[in-house]
């Protein structure tokens, strides 16, 4: 009996939740209408110039709303709707041109227009499908409150017609409990027809993924070759020479003690160098401070080792996963190395924070600017490193400076600080 009560309570709670969610959907859909009007007005303002700035802004709000819709579809109905948007261009450019490019990035994306269309279609769809569960619940409950007493006491007196009608209203309660989630799911499926990527976009994405995967494979193979070379010519060679010197000294210790002493001193030096080379190599693979202190500590340690002052502004509530942490660290290291090598800067700064599911890093300097992602250069290396994680780099570096490198890595933070 207890079990039954528990279950009834759970069903009631779930039904109520479904109704509230449906109402939320309907309200959001209606709230989308003014947004649609404003966005269209901004687009019409494009020729006047002001629209170039305003249209992307308002369309990005539409995009935020579409993202909310995608999240609800997944969390409430288990319908996965992938975001179909194009990624932003990462080439460096000046500020004015950047505004135009941002405008084109938003307006040139077919997904933007499908979002807008959805904002319109969503209104009838969400009003019908979203409010229906609440309607069923209210109508059913009303019947129970109003008529159940009559129904039981005067069962025989009720006309068949009236009875059927009441039974119909009463059946709305189970219909709401069972059918409610399906109505929400129908809304999610309708949303996915416009908000999900089209076949063509999927194909483009697959192409992009294939490319970034090859880049990642290439980069890691090159990295392994470098490590093998470093070991072969470094620590391994030092150890061979160490063995040779000790063996030689062993033979010489009686006949030529002076030579033996020289050899042993060289052997000691060789062992020290072998160790320091191994240390440098390990730092290049996975810096110990990164393992011990995470990105926060590792970037602080990195800043200390540079020949110019680096202002740090780090706000991380947790740690990203190890691969992301390592990619971010080496990207920052590369960017700072570029600052030291090319910029002629007197100051640099690193800003590191977690924002909307992305690890956002900005590395800037007050140097001469004019940085460009040359083939095989440092910036391209960063790009390839981050592409493997669906991340991106944007560089602004007008001639005369300052240079600013923005890097974004989508990731999750583990909140427990370990």
């Amino acid at each position: 009996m207890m079990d039954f009560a528990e279950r009834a309570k759970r069903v009631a709670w779930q039904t109520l939740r479904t109704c509230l969610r449906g109402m939320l959907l309907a309200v959001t859909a209606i709230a989308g209408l003014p947004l649609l009007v404003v966005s269209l007005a901004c687009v019409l303002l494009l020729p006047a110039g002001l629209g170039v700035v305003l249209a992307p802004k308002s369309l990005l709000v539409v995009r935020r709303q579409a993202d909310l819709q995608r999240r609800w579809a997944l969390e409430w109905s288990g319908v996965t709707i992938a975001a179909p948007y194009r990624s932003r261009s990462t080439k460096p450019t000046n500020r004015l041109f950047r505004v135009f490019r941002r405008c084109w990035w938003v307006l040139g994306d077919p997904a933007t227009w499908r979002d807008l269309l959805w904002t319109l279609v969503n209104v009838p769809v969400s009003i019908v499908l979203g409010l229906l569960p609440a309607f069923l619940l209210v109508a059913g409950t009303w019947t129970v409150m109003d008529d159940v007493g009559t129904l039981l006491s005067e069962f025989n007196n009720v006309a068949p017609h009236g009875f059927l009608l009441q039974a119909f209203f009463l059946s709305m309660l189970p219909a709401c409990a069972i059918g409610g989630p399906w109505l929400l799911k129908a809304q999610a499926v309708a949303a996915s027809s416009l908000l999900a990527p089209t076949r063509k976009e999927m194909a483009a994405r697959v192409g992009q993924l294939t490319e970034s995967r090859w880049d990642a494979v290439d980069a890691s193979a090159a990295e392994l070759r470098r490590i093998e070379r470093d070991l072969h010519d470094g620590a391994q060679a030092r150890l061979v020479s160490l063995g040779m010197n000790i063996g030689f000294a062993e033979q010489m210790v009686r006949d030529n003690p002076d030579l033996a002493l020289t050899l042993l001193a060289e052997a000691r030096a060789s062992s020290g160098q072998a160790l320091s080379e191994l240390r440098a190599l390990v730092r290049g693979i996975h810096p110990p401070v990164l393992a011990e202190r995470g990105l926060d500590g590792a970037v602080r340690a990195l800043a200390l080792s540079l020949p110019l002052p680096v202002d740090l502004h780090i706000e991380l509530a947790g740690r990203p996963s190890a691969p992301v942490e390592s990619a971010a660290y080496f990207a920052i290291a590369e960017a700072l190395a570029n600052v030291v090598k090319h910029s002629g800067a007197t100051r640099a700064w690193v800003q590191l924070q977690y924002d909307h599911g992305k690890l956002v890093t900005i590395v800037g300097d007050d140097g001469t600017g004019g940085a460009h992602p040359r083939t095989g250069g440092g910036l391209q290396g960063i790009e390839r490193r981050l592409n493997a994680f669906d991340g991106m780099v944007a560089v602004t570096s007008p001639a005369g400076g300052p240079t600013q490198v923005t890097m974004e890595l989508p990731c999750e933070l583990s909140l427990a600080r370990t």
Partner: protein
Amino acid sequence: MRVVLGEDLTLLRDGLIRLLTAYGMEVVAAADNGPELLSALVHHRPDVAVVDVRLPPTFTDEGLRAAIAARTQLPGLPVLVLSQHVEPLYAKELLSAGTGGLGYLLKDRVSDVLRFIEAVRTVAAGGTAMDPEVVSRLLARHDRDEQLGRLTPREREVLALMAEGHSNAGIAGRLVVTEKAVNKHIGNIFTKLDLYPGEDANRRVLAVLTYLNA
């Protein structure tokens, strides 16, 4: 004894020159890349070449290829190849490139100075000095070979030690038997591998070649 050295890392090159000189050898040339090594070998015609497998400009098996090329130009040129790692494949390539003394050792073996010097002398004298690691890795494949299958385990042990470049006395010492017993084993090996009486040193090399080439 005149030696040509091929080693690109200064540290090891200088160490080897000092070591070889201390044991009465004369390093007539020390090359730090493949093409230079080949021309030094052809020009100096040394008694023995000591060569690192990996050399510039390609940092792959430049040294090995220079050694093989030199052996085809100067048949019988003794070559001792050194490397950070040993590959049976490289050993076979060296063996198939002409006759004459041949050695292939891990660089680590240099620390056993006396044995290393002995290996250099063995190779210069036309013998073989194969790294125990090469020998043992080749040994793993030999179980199925018919000709070698006729050898007793003891005889195979003796053959392996011959491949590493040990003298009869050295083999006897290692196996804790008399030199006479070793002689008997070697005689059996020659018979079983169809190597008929001739010059003893030559038969030794042939036996080792059969063993390594199987």
